């Protein structure tokens, strides 16, 4: 499930390098390398590698492959056909077809083009999060959708679309989320950014600066100038002041999220501490930020870090996205009750869906991958986010987190704890009853459980009606608290596990090192022994040689012969 980043031209990878293009290939094809031929290619296209003919060599294969892929990437959204490529390649038509089919099968070509079609089909499903459980395949694609979802390949010479720096996406994807969360699951990066860049395009036509705080629109065409330019009467050619219309800075324009400075964040936190829930007062401390911006930012802050920390592996993209979902939802919730009621309705529906799912899928918690999947591609509501986070931990933890959150809220706002009591009863019931784990988890959100009760248990009708009185903000905060608590517990667990793992590994390493040292010492001992033996032997040899020499000399003296030569002469 990992997508790898590659840079074939072996230049250092810089995120904002404009001439690099991002392309998407399916994760199972991440083996692909421009500079190499992988074993998969060798086995599937054996013709080129068995040396049977000089018309089928690895070199020829690479030329075919590189040409076809490059051809496709000239226009990644278009389906490349075999007939398009074959006219440009010399070689056996059947073999070319084989290569083409191979590349297509592995998604190295025609991948985004295919997805463009299929994502339309599945987008109707993807607005709810049902997709995740019942279709393993689709779920996988979804995950990839939220990962920094392209493999960075090919600075191909004809690359048409420059990309913008990935980090921006998290902030600006809010807009995409609002329009029904239609991030194409696996479309290439360049596509995604293409849209976003357009949305962000509030750039002054005169000075090129950013028009965040507001701008003036030219009424007779597509032209924008910033406030400064307007004041300085730089209207551009042939335009007069009357033709400009001031556009106040757009409330939901998501660029705002990016505009928070450190100091502002601090100020925001301080004023929230001071004023609590009174967002009007909080917002008064900021000149260019609305109430909604403040709320959105606040929600984004700790939440975002938590999410980033735990889901770093899956990419910031998904995490931030999730935040933004939550943030937008909050905006809606707090600004208009109607809206919020509608969302509740949605989450109610969602429960039902979930229930069906729970029945369809096995009891017990879904596998880890599936949970994570759902985490990142939840549709709209905050409730869904909470639900998703709570699925990542066990139900008991979520219960504890919910209780803690409720208690904290009660202490803080001196609300009667009874307002929540029914829920808690229900929670404990839920745990005792051996129903599917989905229900238990879902139940943990107050409204959700309320709605659930309403739909399933008609006799608690009046109680649940009474509970409509709980202030909306409290409910939201309760659920946020639940989510945070659950996530914290989860991360604690993970951290503990990691710690244990690390300890274990370190122990193993030390043990291995010790073994190695022991071996070495033993080896040296042996060597020493051998050396000693040899030394004694040599000593002995020396002694015996000396003795022999002495003996020979002795004999020579005894025989009275002074020179060997004389002796020889005599003998002969």
């Amino acid at each position, binding site marked *: 499930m990992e997508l790898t980043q590659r840079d074939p031209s072996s230049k250092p990878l810089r995120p904002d390098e404009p001439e690099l293009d991002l392309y998407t290939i399916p994760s199972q094809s991440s083996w692909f390398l421009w500079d190499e031929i992988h074993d998969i290619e060798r086995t599937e296209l054996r013709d080129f590698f068995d040396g049977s003919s000089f*018309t089928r060599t690895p070199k*020829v294969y690479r030329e075919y492959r590189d040409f076809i892929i490059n051809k496709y990437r000239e226009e990644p959204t278009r389906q490349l*056909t075999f007939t398009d490529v074959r006219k440009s390649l010399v070689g056996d038509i*059947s073999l070319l077809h084989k290569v083409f089919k191979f590349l297509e099968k592995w998604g190295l070509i025609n991948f985004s083009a295919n997805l463009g079609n299929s994502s339309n089909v599945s987008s109707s499903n993807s607005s709810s999060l049902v997709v995740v459980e019942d279709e393993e395949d689709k779920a996988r694609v979804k995950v990839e959708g939220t990962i920094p979802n392209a493999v960075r390949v090919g600075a191909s010479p004809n690359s048409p679309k420059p990309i913008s720096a990935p980090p921006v996406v998290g902030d600006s994807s809010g807009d995409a989320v609002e329009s029904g969360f239609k991030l194409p699951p696996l479309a290439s990066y360049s596509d995604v950014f293409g849209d976003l860049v357009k949305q962000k395009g509030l750039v002054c036509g005169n000075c090129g600066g950013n028009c965040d705080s507001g701008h003036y629109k030219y009424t007779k065409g597509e032209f924008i100038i910033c406030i400064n330019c307007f004041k300085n009467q730089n209207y551009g050619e042939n335009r007069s002041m009357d033709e400009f219309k001031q556009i106040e800075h757009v409330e939901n324009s998501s660029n705002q999220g990016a505009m928070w400075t450190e100091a502002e964040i601090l100020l925001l936190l301080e004023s929230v501490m001071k004023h609590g829930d009174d967002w009007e007062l909080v917002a008064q401390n900021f000149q260019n930020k609305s109430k909604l911006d403040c709320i959105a930012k606040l929600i984004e802050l700790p939440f975002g870090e938590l999410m980033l920390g735990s889901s770093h592996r899956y990419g910031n993209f998904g995490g931030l996205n999730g935040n933004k979902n939550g943030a937008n939802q909050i905006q809606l919730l707090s600004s208009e009750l109607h809206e919020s009621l509608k969302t509740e309705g949605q989450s109610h529906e969602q429960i039902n869906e979930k229930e069906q799912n729970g029945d369809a899928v096995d009891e017990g918690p879904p596998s880890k991958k599936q949970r994570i999947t759902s985490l990142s591609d939840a549709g709209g509501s905050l409730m869904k986010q909470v639900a998703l986070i709570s699925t990542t931990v066990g139900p008991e933890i979520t219960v504890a987190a919910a209780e803690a959150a409720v208690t904290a809220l009660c202490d803080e706002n001196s609300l009667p704890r009874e307002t929540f009591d029914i829920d808690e009863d229900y929670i404990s019931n839920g745990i005792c009853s051996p129903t599917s784990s989905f229900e238990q988890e879902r139940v943990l959100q107050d409204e959700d459980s309320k709605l659930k009760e309403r739909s399933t248990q008609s006799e608690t009708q009046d109680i649940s009606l009474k509970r409509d009185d709980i202030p909306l903000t409290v409910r939201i905060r309760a659920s946020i608290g639940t989510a945070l608590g659950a996530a914290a517990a989860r991360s604690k667990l993970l951290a503990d596990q990691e710690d244990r793992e690390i300890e274990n590994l370190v122990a193993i390493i030390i043990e291995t090192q010790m073994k190695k040292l022991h071996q070495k010492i033993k080896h040296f001992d042996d060597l020493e022994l051998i050396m000693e033996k040899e030394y004694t032997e040599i000593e002995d040899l020396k002694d015996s040689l000396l003795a022999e020499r002495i003996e020979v000399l002795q004999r020579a003296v005894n025989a009275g012969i002074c020179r060997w030569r004389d002796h020889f002469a005599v003998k002969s």
Partner: protein
Amino acid sequence: MKAPALSFSKAPVKFRMPTSANLVPIRLDIEIDGQRFKDAFTWNPSDPDSEVVVFAKRTVKDLKLPPAFITQIASSIQTQLAEFRSYEGQDMYSGEKIVPIKLDLRVNHTLIKDQFLWDMNNFESDPEEFARTFCKDLGIEDPEVGPAIAFAIREQLYEIATQSVASARESRISKKGRRGTEHATSSKSSGSALDLVKLFGYRSSVVRKRKDWDVYEPIVDHLSNEEVDALEAREDRNIR
């Protein structure tokens, strides 16, 4: 006798269709009493011959032709099968052989011109699959086009195969006579094949030059009724 080991020391390929399925292209053009029956299809040479008559009867019945056609169709198929079988077991060619295949055919209202290379040593090739891809890629909806393309390819491959058998036989005879000329004959026998060393050599790229793209690009035309009529009239005239 020492056979000089040339660069391609592979044993010559025994005759067969150079495709994955060893199918004989059969073309029928029978005229009885002013009634004309034209058809083209492939036949598996390992099928029992009794099938031929069954097929002939069936075709005549399906197309409501006069019964006189049965024997004509059956004998025509038999002759063509016998011809194919007469080549079986003979040497075809040795070494690399990649040939250009040129398509120029009209099926109903569709006119197709195309050119590509075919490796005679690739026994996994599949003209039918190629034709399917062709029609899909070019958005040809007429269901008769695909089989016609595949058949045209098979016909050309068959012709090249039979020619190679003939030239292989010829070169064997001349080898016996004069040993010195074998190089000349072998180069002559691969006359229709391309200069592969030039195409696939170390220096050249297998990516074609841009100016050649048009040559190897398929051209598909959709004809109007009048054009079809005119063409058919001209074809008839040419036959007579």
